[in-house]
């Protein structure tokens, strides 16, 4: 079979368990978690690829892949199903050599798919992860990488010094070349945090992956092994500054915050955008939403296929939800297919897909300004029975 040679392909790490999202990822891989009313987290890196002109994406899955695989399908919603483009799901599989079996780390996942990458004979490989919300032109990063004649380029963003010890920190020279990489340092020397987005010369990465497999003590991880090893070996490594919106939505709090940050007339993160900024998603065949005469919606997103009879304030309501008469939804993320019955009150909550809040039930609560908001969460299909309470911070 003939494979067109590609300048750049992307490998998207989508196999993580997402355990910090607790009940939301009990049955769903993190990249398949709904976001922003009609999207899933993976739509952001996938759409970024398409908008950057990258038409070949390998998607590495491992944890709870069923829903994610079904969602990606043949890549049609992102236009990645053409003769010379693909969104190829790459699950672990059995074979009769070292590349057999489960992925044992981010680097190992790519190592086990060297054959896939080789088919396209790419000059550059962009490594992405499936748990970030952002819009980015990867092509600009590749151009920067090429212009600087680097072996590796890492996208970085400035984080507050107090938070820097939670990230992989890159210490750079004045020309933005990297001289040191510290994974979650106790005493950070800079505030350049790695975004987990890498551009490699494929020949360099390929060799590094094979070498890393020989090391029995390696964690087989990009941040812990591949990047430090290449740096120590003297490869030119550049930092690529990205100052747009970017959020790791790996926790309940950050997922809730990121959803809230899409709201407003001039939101921190604008889901809209001009040409080459569209976020594509698999669309459901649902009709327009009905807004009743008694409904009131203020500063909120409501996606298709909803029936709203109650009040919605500062919230994201996803496709196919219904909100009963006299119900109040405030500061909440309501995922697809949720039913909220008459008189229910939902505040500071994330309601998982197809969950249900019964009549007059109360979920979550209000918080004073500055007080830590404790988000209540319902898992997929959970039912908060009528007239019962799900306390702030509680999960069902």
């Amino acid at each position, binding site marked *: 079979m003939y494979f067109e040679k590609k300048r750049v392909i992307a490998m998207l790490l989508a196999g993580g368990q997402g355990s910090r999202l607790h009940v939301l990822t009990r049955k769903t891989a993190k990249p398949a978690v709904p976001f922003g*009313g*009609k999207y899933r987290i993976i739509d952001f890196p996938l759409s970024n690829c398409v908008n950057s002109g990258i038409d070949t994406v390998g998607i590495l899955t491992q944890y709870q892949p069923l829903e994610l695989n079904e969602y990606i399908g043949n890549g049609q919603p992102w236009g990645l199903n053409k003769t010379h483009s693909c969104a190829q799901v790459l699950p672990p599989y059995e074979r009769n050599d070292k590349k057999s079996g489960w992925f044992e780390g981010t680097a190992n996942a790519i190592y086990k798919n060297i054959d896939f990458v080789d088919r396209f004979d790419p000059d550059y490989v962009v490594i992405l992860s499936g748990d970030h919300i952002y819009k980015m032109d990867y092509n600009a990063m590749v151009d920067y990488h090429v212009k600087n004649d680097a072996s590796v380029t890492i996208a970085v963003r400035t984080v507050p010094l107090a938070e820097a010890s939670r990230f992989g920190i890159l210490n750079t020279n004045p020309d933005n070349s990297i001289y040191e990489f510290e994974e979650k340092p106790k005493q950070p020397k800079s505030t350049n945090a790695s975004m987990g987005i890498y551009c490699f010369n494929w020949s360099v990465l390929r060799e590094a992956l094979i070498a890393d497999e020989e090391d029995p003590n390696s964690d087989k991880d990009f941040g812990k092994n591949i990047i430090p090893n290449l740096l120590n070996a003297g490869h030119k490594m550049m930092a690529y500054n990205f100052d747009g919106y970017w959020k790791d939505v790996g926790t309940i709090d950050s997922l809730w915050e990121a959803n809230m940050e899409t709201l407003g007339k001039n939101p921190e993160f604008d*889901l*809209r955008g001009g040409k080459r900024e569209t976020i594509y998603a698999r669309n459901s*065949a649902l009709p*327009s939403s009905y*807004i009743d005469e008694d409904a009131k*919606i203020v500063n909120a*997103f409501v996606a298709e296929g909803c029936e709203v009879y109650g009040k919605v304030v500062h919230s994201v309501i996803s496709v196919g939800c219904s909100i009963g008469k006299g119900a109040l939804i405030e500061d909440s993320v309501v995922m697809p297919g949720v039913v909220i019955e008459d008189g229910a009150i939902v505040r500071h909550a994330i309601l998982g897909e197809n969950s249900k809040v019964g009549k007059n039930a109360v979920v979550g609560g209000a918080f004073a300004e500055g007080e830590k908001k404790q988000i209540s969460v319902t898992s997929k299909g959970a039912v908060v029975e009528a007239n019962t309470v799900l306390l702030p911070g509680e999960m069902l």
Partner: protein
Amino acid sequence: MNVTGIIFTNDATMGELTNKRTSGSIPFGGRYRQIDWALSNMTCAGIRHIGVISRHSYQSLMHHIGDGEEWGLELEEGGLEFLTPYASATNYLYRGKLESIYNAMDFLEYSDNDGDDLVVMSDSAILANVDLADVIRSHVASGKHVTVVTKAGIANGEKKLDLALKLDDNGEVADMVVDFAAAEDYVASMDIFVLSKARLISWVKEMVARDKYHMDRDLVMGGWRRGQIGINVYQFAGTALYNESVEEYFANSLSLIDKETRHDIFNGNHPVYTKVRDRVPTYYGEKCDIENCLIADGCMLEGEVEDSVLFRQVSIEEGAEVENCIIMNDSVVGAGAELKYVILDKNVTVTPGAKLIGTKKNPIVVKRGETV
């Protein structure tokens, strides 16, 4: 038994709305085109070989349907075909459905005929969620030549109907009229027919040879009157929206606000598929007041909207008041503007403070792309 679908998208007479469109490509219900119902009804019944017959202005229709992907019709075998007229020694711009089928004979004769193959025909100006699989079962069980799907309560002695039938106590056809404002005791044809493919092919060839081109008059009514064609009547119980004039279109659009009508037309078990647009969810601003409306995706709402249907990516600016309106894709209603009984076609800009007041019988229609 293979079933082939034929959808006619008529040359509609709805003034500005059909200026550059066939009836099939008129936007309806916030995010659809009228042909979506006929197409979705067929694909939900498992029909995978569908021809769309259109005489004029089919550009926007072709753009909408593409290769039929959204309806699952992007197939190697069968799938969707546009049967647009073309001139050749044996072809000419047709006058009626029979001639249009005659022109598209290659399409009908293309697939192998098992002998019991059927054709389902549908128009695209009458919108209903019809279980065509059930209609086909009824047709086969009846043993009749042609099944006509009908709707009671449409004939009123005023509305001119393409085809109306009077039924006797046994549900048999007692009378048939064509292009006539039949009285209330008639049932209206929904322009959906089921018949054998082999018969259709031979009838069309014979009729066209005798200069007959009118499907309802010459084939259905004529055949029945001559005693050659037995008619099975399938009485449809659900909602059927006849969009045959601007007034009807306007009233039917707003009728979707009614829960029962809406749930009937967008039956969850038989989804209505349409072309996907990647729009963000609709944003409801701090000061918006939306009551009793059907709202599509991608809108930006800051003003007041009541009893209206908004299509995708509509922007209602602060202080604007919209009541009993249909506002199509990408239109903008400027700050403080006031609209009552208005249909804004796609891409219309209403400048801030403008005032447009129509009536229920005569809604104001603003042409595509205009600025008011």
